[in-house]
């Protein structure tokens, strides 16, 4: 039975009447890798700052291990943070940066030495003790920041988009590295990111946020396979989101055709959003298909082709290994487990149409790119 470590209850944050966090309720278990995922401005960093103690909620309570800690300053919390831009001390070398917390805690020199070296080894920076911070690459600075936080043996490590400034390859390496460190040390990680791939790859639990509210909490599989609303479905991976009507349990009607699905529990004839992931669609010949459409665009992506198909004026993205030329008429088949039915929400109709496919793909591409201009530097 996992033990609850942190609880945010009814947390509201307002800046000059602007609501940043709206009645946030969240609990975090001991030794969990929890990710707060959402677009910028969704409140994820604010949530992290509340846990770190840099921001007090306008109303609501924060509990740590059962104790209310609203008024506890950051230096008295058993929590350490890896800041977005690392915030390493430029006047100290690598060793002294990592030793900073221990020196303040007045740990004896011998132990400081041993713990700092041990931690530098964990983050693969052995031999860098004497280096000055400015002589490190982005990835190395990143790892110093992680070591500096972890050397204090916090109960919880908060990470604020720590990989945001690194290039693609380095990010992948660091993701694996972070997951390894988390499991090795058995520490709770609360990780903030806007990168859904990162969130899915590393987390035990993903908290999807938008507009200061939690949209969905679940395991990466839950979030991907069973999104709760159109926002989550669109933000996590690629989705075709289509208006449908629930005719009965296990039967959903799209484009006036009935499909078998696994969802139930809706009112008879309730309008719903239907999510169909691009990889769950099989392309068949036109006369065998449940739906028939015309291919309007094909892009080769390596593993598969991104094929845009026009069904009655609504464009779907289908990822397939079969090449279908533009203007060919095709049919599609969808297995019952490839159809996911969601209740209508405020986000209905806002996402999931690929009519403006290329632009949308660009946007997604931007979101996963590093926002910073930091170079990756050379890694040894």
């Amino acid at each position, binding site marked *: 039975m996992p033990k609850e470590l942190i609880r945010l209850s009814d947390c509201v944050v307002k800046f000059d009447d602007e609501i940043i966090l709206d009645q946030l309720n969240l609990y975090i278990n001991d030794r969990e890798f929890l990710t707060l995922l959402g677009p910028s401005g969704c409140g994820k960093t604010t949530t992290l700052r509340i846990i770190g103690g*840099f921001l007090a909620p306008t109303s609501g309570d924060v509990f740590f291990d059962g104790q209310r800690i609203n008024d506890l300053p*950051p*230096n008295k919390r058993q929590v350490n943070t890896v800041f977005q831009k690392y*915030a390493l*001390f*430029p006047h100290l070398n690598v060793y002294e940066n990592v030793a900073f*917390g221990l020196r303040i*805690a007045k740990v004896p020199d011998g132990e400081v030495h041993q713990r700092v070296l041990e931690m530098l080894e964990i983050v693969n920076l052995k031999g860098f003790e004497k280096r000055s911070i400015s002589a490190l690459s982005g990835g190395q600075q990143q790892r110093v920041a992680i070591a500096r936080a972890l050397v204090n043996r916090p109960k919880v490590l908060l990470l604020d988009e720590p990989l945001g400034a690194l290039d693609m390859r380095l990010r992948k390496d660091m993701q694996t590295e972070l997951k390894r460190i988390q499991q090795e040390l058995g520490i709770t990680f609360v990780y903030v990111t806007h990168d859904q791939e990162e969130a899915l790859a590393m987390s035990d639990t993903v908290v999807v946020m938008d507009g200061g509210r939690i949209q969905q909490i679940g395991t990466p599989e839950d979030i991907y396979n069973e999104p709760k609303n159109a926002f989550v479905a669109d933000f996590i991976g690629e989705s075709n989101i289509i208006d449908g009507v629930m005719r009965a349990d296990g039967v959903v009607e799209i484009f006036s055709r009935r499909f078998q699905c696994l969802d139930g529990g809706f009112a008879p004839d309730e309008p719903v959003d239907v999510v169909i992931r691009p990889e769950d669609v099989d392309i068949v010949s036109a006369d065998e298909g449940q739906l028939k459409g015309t291919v309007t665009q094909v892009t080769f992506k390596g593993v598969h082709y991104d094929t845009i198909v026009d069904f009655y004026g609504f464009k779907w993205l289908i990822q397939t290994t079969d090449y279908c030329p533009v203007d060919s008429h095709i049919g599609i088949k969808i297995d019952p487990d490839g159809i996911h039915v969601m209740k209508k929400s405020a986000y209905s109709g806002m996402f999931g149409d690929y009519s403006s496919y290329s632009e949308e793909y660009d946007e997604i591409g931007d979101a996963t790119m590093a926002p910073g201009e930091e170079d990756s530097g050379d890694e040894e």
Partner: protein
Amino acid sequence: MKNKSRRLAIPYVIWMALFVVAPIVLMVIYAFTAEGGGLALDNFTSMGAYLDVFLRSFELALIATLVCLLVGYPVAYCMAKEGPRFQRIAMALIMLPMWMNFLLRTYAWMSILENNGLINQFLGAIGVLDLLGVDHIRLIRTQGAVVLGMVYNYLPFMILPIYSVIVKLDGSLLEAARDLGANTAGVFRKVIFPLSLPGILSGVTMVFVPSVSTFAISRLLGGGRQMMLGDLIEQQFLGGAYDPHLGAAIALVMMVVVVVCMAVMNHFGEGEEQAVML
């Protein structure tokens, strides 16, 4: 491209050569020659007679610098922590005296500190002087008055560089220090203070150097009793003791001492930005 942009610097290089390098060369030549020409070290050997002036100059300048630092640092720190409105007003107040003529400001202090000046009049009016049984407290023509004059005139030069360093400190560094367990005093001691050292070094240089060579302040507020290097040098060129060779030698020695002081200071701040060398 490179050559073209280099050419733009020529006017300044000529200016520097004519009015900075050439005078220093002249000063060195004067210092090492006797009247009528000929190499001589007499100027340096006879300087021993003025040892007390040297000591007094450096002592007073040092005290003034220290006072400026002790007064200026907290001001700079508080200013940097306040909102932009407060910062603008504070900045204007600090700069305000500098818009007035330097001599005027110092004369003003004379009339405040004189035996029948504002302070003594005030103390007389409230009966403190009668209580002490004196008819005035001597304020002017003391070392304290000279130091006061220096502090008053040069304090902005201490505040501004320290302020500009602190105000630029990355807020996330302070958060990081708190996050790692430092309390407010710890954050100051381990992060803010070390990172403001470049500002302190600049400030110290900018106060110490003009203080050590001042002659107006010591003459007006020290009343000739607190002769400093500046006065001594001036006397060699304009005063009755006309001896430009000795004056040049004294100026040279002072310059060397100041440069050595600054080099030592910069050594302590090693790894930081170098203090401004004047």
